[in-house]
């Protein structure tokens, strides 16, 4: 370019003729329009993906937030000495008592079969009975008195008060009759009904009655399972990654292992479920549906991703660290365990947490090892049948009671909250401790 001045001026480029120029201009316009359109395809694709995300999250929140509160009724129960079984209070029918007395107070007459009382009784949760029985057991002196008992309303009554069962629906298509709706309105007008935080959702195990069902059993089951998974998968995965990255000779065997790990990472999760069923349950006779088996299956599933993540963080430690350690007389093992691994630890832990979070949400293998049946209460040991959060979501989604639908969405929120917590922990760990070389 420096000698451009010395060059003879180039012959001027022939200006395009007018029609050609018009054609070029028109073509340019078309091409720019196409450019614009193309850019919009990309934008639309991203907008669509984000819209799906927003819809997914929005639907879960809008379906599930109502499960976090529940309507309770404060019912005055006259503990009729003739009807309370002193020896075994839990056997007395407190719901019936409360319903009959409430009808009497309202001045409604019941037929001989007690149809109305039965219908009114079904608006209360069976929790009413347990709470009344507990009061009587603790203070037998209460018998003969009238005591207020506060207990949740039944799932259908709760749905009506939440506005999810509408009066406009013909009464044969809803689960509550007009009469029952009138009673609920009356209870509300009398100030007996209060809406409060649904603590049962967090403090109870699974139950067949939606108003008493909670996620605690599943949360504990999932926690036990993840504990097993972490105890097995993290040491094995880190060990395998260290071997492949730091020790293995470049030969056929290590190549085979590498190919194997890459393929295992892409095996569908349900195949791991089949493996777990055949290997752990049918062959080793480990207890079905137990967190032990679930944890073992999830550990096998998490291993490949864990190995891959650990290897990449070991790879990120510069070779100069290894060489310095070796030069100071450390053995290979000492260099790896004393220097390389500690430096890679933040990355290893990040990978471990993320793969645990992933394992937490895995469902299909759990169904195959039997975590599909109803397990009441909170599991206490890793070798007893237990539920898990994802399988609870599946079970509740399949339940016929409508009240379980909102609880399913609430359980999903709990699951997502745990996953977000774990991922946030991983991100913080990475931000705080990761070193760039």
């Amino acid at each position, binding site marked *: 370019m420096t000698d451009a001045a010395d060059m003879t001026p180039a012959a001027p480029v022939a200006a395009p003729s007018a029609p050609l120029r018009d054609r070029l201009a028109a073509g340019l316009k078309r091409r720019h329009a196409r450019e614009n359109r193309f850019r919009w395809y990309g934008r639309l694709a991203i907008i669509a993906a984000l819209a799906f995300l927003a819809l997914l999250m929005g639907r879960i929140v809008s379906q599930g937030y109502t499960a976090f509160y529940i309507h309770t009724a404060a019912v005055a129960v006259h503990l009729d000495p003739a009807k309370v079984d002193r020896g075994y209070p839990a056997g007395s029918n407190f719901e019936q008592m409360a319903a009959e007395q409430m009808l009497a107070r309202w001045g409604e007459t019941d037929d001989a079969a007690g149809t109305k009382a039965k219908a009114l009784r079904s608006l209360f949760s069976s929790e009413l009975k347990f709470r009344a029985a507990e009061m009587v057991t603790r203070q037998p002196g209460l018998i003969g008195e009238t005591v207020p008992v506060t207990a949740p309303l039944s799932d259908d009554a709760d749905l009506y008060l939440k506005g999810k069962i509408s009066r406009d629906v013909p009464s044969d298509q809803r689960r509550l009759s007009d009469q029952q709706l009138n009673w609920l309105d009356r209870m509300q007008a009398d100030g007996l009904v209060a809406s409060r935080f649904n603590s049962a959702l967090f403090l109870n195990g699974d139950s067949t009655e939606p108003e008493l069902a909670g996620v605690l059993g599943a949360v504990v089951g999932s926690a036990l399972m993840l504990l097993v998974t972490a105890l097995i998968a993290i040491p094995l995965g880190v060990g395998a990654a260290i*071997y492949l990255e730091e020790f293995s000779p470049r030969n056929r065997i290590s190549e085979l292992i590498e190919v194997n790990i890459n393929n295992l990472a892409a*095996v569908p999760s349900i195949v791991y479920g089949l493996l777990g069923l055949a290997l752990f349950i049918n062959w080793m006779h480990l207890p079905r549906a137990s967190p032990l088996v679930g944890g073992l299956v999830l550990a096998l599933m998490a291993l490949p991703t864990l190995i891959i993540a650990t290897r990449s963080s070991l790879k990120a430690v510069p070779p100069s660290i290894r060489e310095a350690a070796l030069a100071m007389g450390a053995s290979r093992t000492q260099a790896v365990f004393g220097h390389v691994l500690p430096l890679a630890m933040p990355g290893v832990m990040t990978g471990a947490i993320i793969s645990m979070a992933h394992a937490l949400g895995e469902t299909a293998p759990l169904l195959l090892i039997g975590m599909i049946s109803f397990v009441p209460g909170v599991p206490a040991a890793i070798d007893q049948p237990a539920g898990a959060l994802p399988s609870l979501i599946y079970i509740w*989604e399949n339940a016929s009671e409508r009240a379980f639908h909102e609880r399913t969405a609430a359980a999903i929120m709990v699951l997502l909250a745990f996953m977000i917590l774990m991922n946030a922990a991983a991100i913080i760990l990475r931000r705080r401790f990761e070193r760039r070389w």
Partner: protein
Amino acid sequence: MTWLVFLILLLAGALAYGGGLALARRRGRDVRSHSRPGQHAAFAAIWAVIPALVVLTIGQITLPGIATGLIEAGETPAVAELEPFRRAAFYSDARRVGAGDQAQQIWPAPLAQELTATGQRIAWIGNGLNLALGALVAAVALIGALVAFTRIRPDFRARSRVEAWVAIGLFACSAIAVLTTIGIIASLVYDSWRFFQSVPITEFLFGTKWSPQIAIRADQVGSSGAFGAVPLFAGTLLIMLIAMIVAGPIGLFSAIYLSEYAGPKTRATVKPLLEILAGVPTVVYGFFAALTVGPALRVFFNTIGGWLIGGPLDGVGQYLALVQNQMALTAGAVMGIMLIPFVSSLSDDIINAVPQSLRDGSFAMGATKSETISRVLMPAALPGVAGAFLLAVSRAIGETMIVTMAAGLAANLTFNPLDTVTTVTVQIVTLLTGDQEFNSPKTLAAFGLGLTLFLVTLALNIIAQRIVSAYREQYD
């Protein structure tokens, strides 16, 4: 549990005693120890624990077999004459009785007494064998520890020994990966083989009727149901195609936009958001499909059907008005949403791997950005993108929860996206979650399906990985 406690105690004891020994034997002598006390301790611990662990594992694996052998050796003719299924049920009940539980069924008179006797015998044999194993393990641990303790001396090269063991341990860890594969193949092949003994493999692969029912009449042996898996393959394929129609363009275009158009800020916000979509558990997508997308699509098609009824397209209208929640479209569309981030992040990597010089060359020739992308980048990235799509296809085929919750169970051989179809994974879950005897063809069929699924996804993955790595090498 007791074993675990025992092993931990053993480990701690050997560590403490070995370390102490190493210190004691050095004390008072003017020698430099080759290895540190900790390494001597580790050496002792290895010798105490590993042989014991090996014996324990072998024992645990072989004991059930030995026990069964011993139990069956003393079998009475009354039991031996039972049919295999009844005999297995008898033994599992006897095991329950022996453990102090209730039997699951009521057995006729001669067998009922036999049951109690057998139960006691089983309990007795089990306890005896367990005690024997315990004694053996303890003896091995003791011998191992003593051997190690005698060798601890300042000039003993404990470190090299321990490090050799560490290397072996690490190798064992990575061998687990291979063992998992072998385990998968072995369990799938073994049970599939048993399945194919009652159902010919050709019928399974090419039969067009799927109704895995068990024989109801007692004189029938094996299955009377039909195990032709073609409708399942067709259903899987249909849902996969719908998913790819959703995920392919959206994923690819968002990858193109993110890598070629978007500024760093947009990238930094959009990419993590897309990653959230990838992190959502599939059971959540299933819930979304079953309770949101399915009903919405049904209402949509039913409304259109309502408009068409009575018009020139009356037949179509009648059909649309009766469309159900559980159509292939629901499951496919939601699965497509799930796959978007997968396709987009893989394609993003692929597009980024195309060398900048190709872009620069195209721009220098006066091409616009979109022309560069569609005529230069895409042809260059095509193999890689194809690989990414194949990986997504393999994901779609193996996906279980969305289809289990949102697709149906009816095995229709159809390619109508508004019909109910079922997939391989749905059938695996359905076949294995009922109350079934494990040995019936119905449950074994699940393993046949699982083997097919495993082989197909494995093949897809291998092909996809080959394509992607060949593509990467091209530009390295």
